């Protein structure tokens, strides 16, 4: 019941230039949203800028191809870089077949089963487990129980476990983008489920699966905590010569340098961070390129 003098709420506006009620709140909200984007971006830029300014000058071929040293200006990053690349490949080899296989099972075979529902919840929870816990699991399972020791394969297996939920979830996402009408078309032509998956669903979802995989792998090579827990060596002067070899990796090397008191090692750390970031950037650009190509084809 409004007072008779009050105009009705939805009166036809006669003055089209009049200020709408609530316009202030709306504008304030837009600014809050803008601020929420700008602040983290700004902080990130300052952080990256700081590291790049400090580290970029230190990067040269000697640094990239040199072995670690007790003297900061002679220390290089080569074993860590190679270790990270090995880790990346091994992690991919372990995590992708498992992750894609699990995703295919959940999306294409297990859609109606209760087991699939339980697995789904478990995977979502696993994705939220802190990485140091995976490190402990890797220590117990791979380093001790399977007696892999502080080896590349133990590190890669631990990282593979860590990224498995991400690979599974992003692969399922990719599989879900394939419309059911195409699955039905394949069945209608007399294809078995496997033929349908192999020749219709996987080719169409491959770019999406690869994008997710690359993002997962770039997450893996940035991880430090699990590698420290399973005992990746911080100071080695040789390159890994097999999957059972001891190893170090970029984040470990950076962690090691950062914890030194001398100023020069901090510069090394900054340079190491730049190298790590460039590697990640490269990987992510590949992911973006793949997604772009995928979208163009749709």
């Amino acid at each position, binding site marked *: 019941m409004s007072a008779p003098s009050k105009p009705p709420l939805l009166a036809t506006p006669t003055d089209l230039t009049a200020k709408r009620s609530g316009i202030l709140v709306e504008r304030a909200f837009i600014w809050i949203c803008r601020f929420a984007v700008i602040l983290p971006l700004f902080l990130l830029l300052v952080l990256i800028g700081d590291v790049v300014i400090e580290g970029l000058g230190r990067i040269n071929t000697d640094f990239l191809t040199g072995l670690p040293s007790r003297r900061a200006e002679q220390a290089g990053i080569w074993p860590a870089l190679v270790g990270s690349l090995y880790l990346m490949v091994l992690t991919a080899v372990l995590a992708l077949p498992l992750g894609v296989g699990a995703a295919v099972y959940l999306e294409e075979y297990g859609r109606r089963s209760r087991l699939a529902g339980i697995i789904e919840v478990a995977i979502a929870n696993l994705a939220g487990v802190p990485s140091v816990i995976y490190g402990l699991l890797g220590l117990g399972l791979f380093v001790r129980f399977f007696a892999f020791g502080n080896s590349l394969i133990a590190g890669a297996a631990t990282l593979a476990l860590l990224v498995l939920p991400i690979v599974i979830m992003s692969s399922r996402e990719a599989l879900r983008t394939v419309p059911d009408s*195409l699955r039905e078309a394949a069945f209608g*032509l*007399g294809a078995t489920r496997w033929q349908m998956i192999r020749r*219709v669903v996987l080719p169409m979802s491959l770019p999406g699966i690869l994008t997710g995989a690359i993002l997962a792998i770039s997450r893996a090579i940035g991880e430090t905590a699990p590698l420290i827990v399973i005992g990746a060596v911080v100071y080695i002067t040789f390159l890994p010569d097999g999957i059972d070899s001891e190893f170090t990796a970029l984040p470990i090397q950076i962690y090691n340098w950062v914890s030194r008191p001398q100023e020069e090692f901090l510069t090394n750390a900054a340079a190491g961070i730049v190298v790590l970031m460039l590697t990640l950037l490269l990987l992510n650009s590949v992911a973006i390129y793949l997604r772009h190509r995928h979208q163009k084809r749709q």
Partner: protein
Amino acid sequence: MAAPQPTPYRMPAEEANNIIKKITATDVHAWFGDNHVLKSITMDIPAKQVTAIIGPSGCGKSTFIRCVNRMHELIPNARISGSITLDGENVYRPGVDPVLLRRRVGMVFQKPNPFPSMSIRDNVLAGLKLTRRYARADAADTVENALRQAALWDEVKDKLDEPGTSLSGGQQQRLCIARTLAVAPEVVLMDEPCSALDPIATARIEDLLHVLRKDYTIVIVTHNLQQATRVSQRTAFFLTGDLVEYSDTDSLFTSPQDQRTEDYITGKFG
């Protein structure tokens, strides 16, 4: 309106005797979970004729034809009882492989669904490639034959390598028909194949049906009653999961035996 208790329609014996039965459905019931969507469907589908299925939306037309090639059971919680025979053999008998059945009973869907990652040629060959029955030597012939049968050859013969999705909707649907014919089925089930098409594309597909009838047994679901009269020899009228009336198309449309059929074809509901 007090609907009379539906009784499953049975074809008079003398009429049933002089046609070859390709498919016989006996007491078919189908469910989605607890939803009982087909109730005791019994009907014979004659060989080398076009059988139309009409009825209001949701009455179970698609479900029925999906029972024939056992696509119904792919949906979680979907069930079926009764029997459907193809050339006298019950397709629901234990041991029958639905995959092999679907190679004899092809299906064309309501929405054209060519495989987007394949060229026009590969779309036609998709059934053969998918099921590894593909011989490179015959490929060109297979493609041309199937596309000619689907009345698409002249429009696409110069761009067989372009993606199947680059065609217009009507062309895509004919491509899907070609794809279905390329695996050489005996029966072709069509679920509202023209509902996404304009009148010209529809007319082409209708013309096509008259030709295809010589070689294939065709079952077509349609919402377009004129289309049913134009293309089919026999028509079945479904209503809320019951087969209300089933007879040759002319008599069903000119002198329906059931009041509900008459109401439907005169546009009183549906």
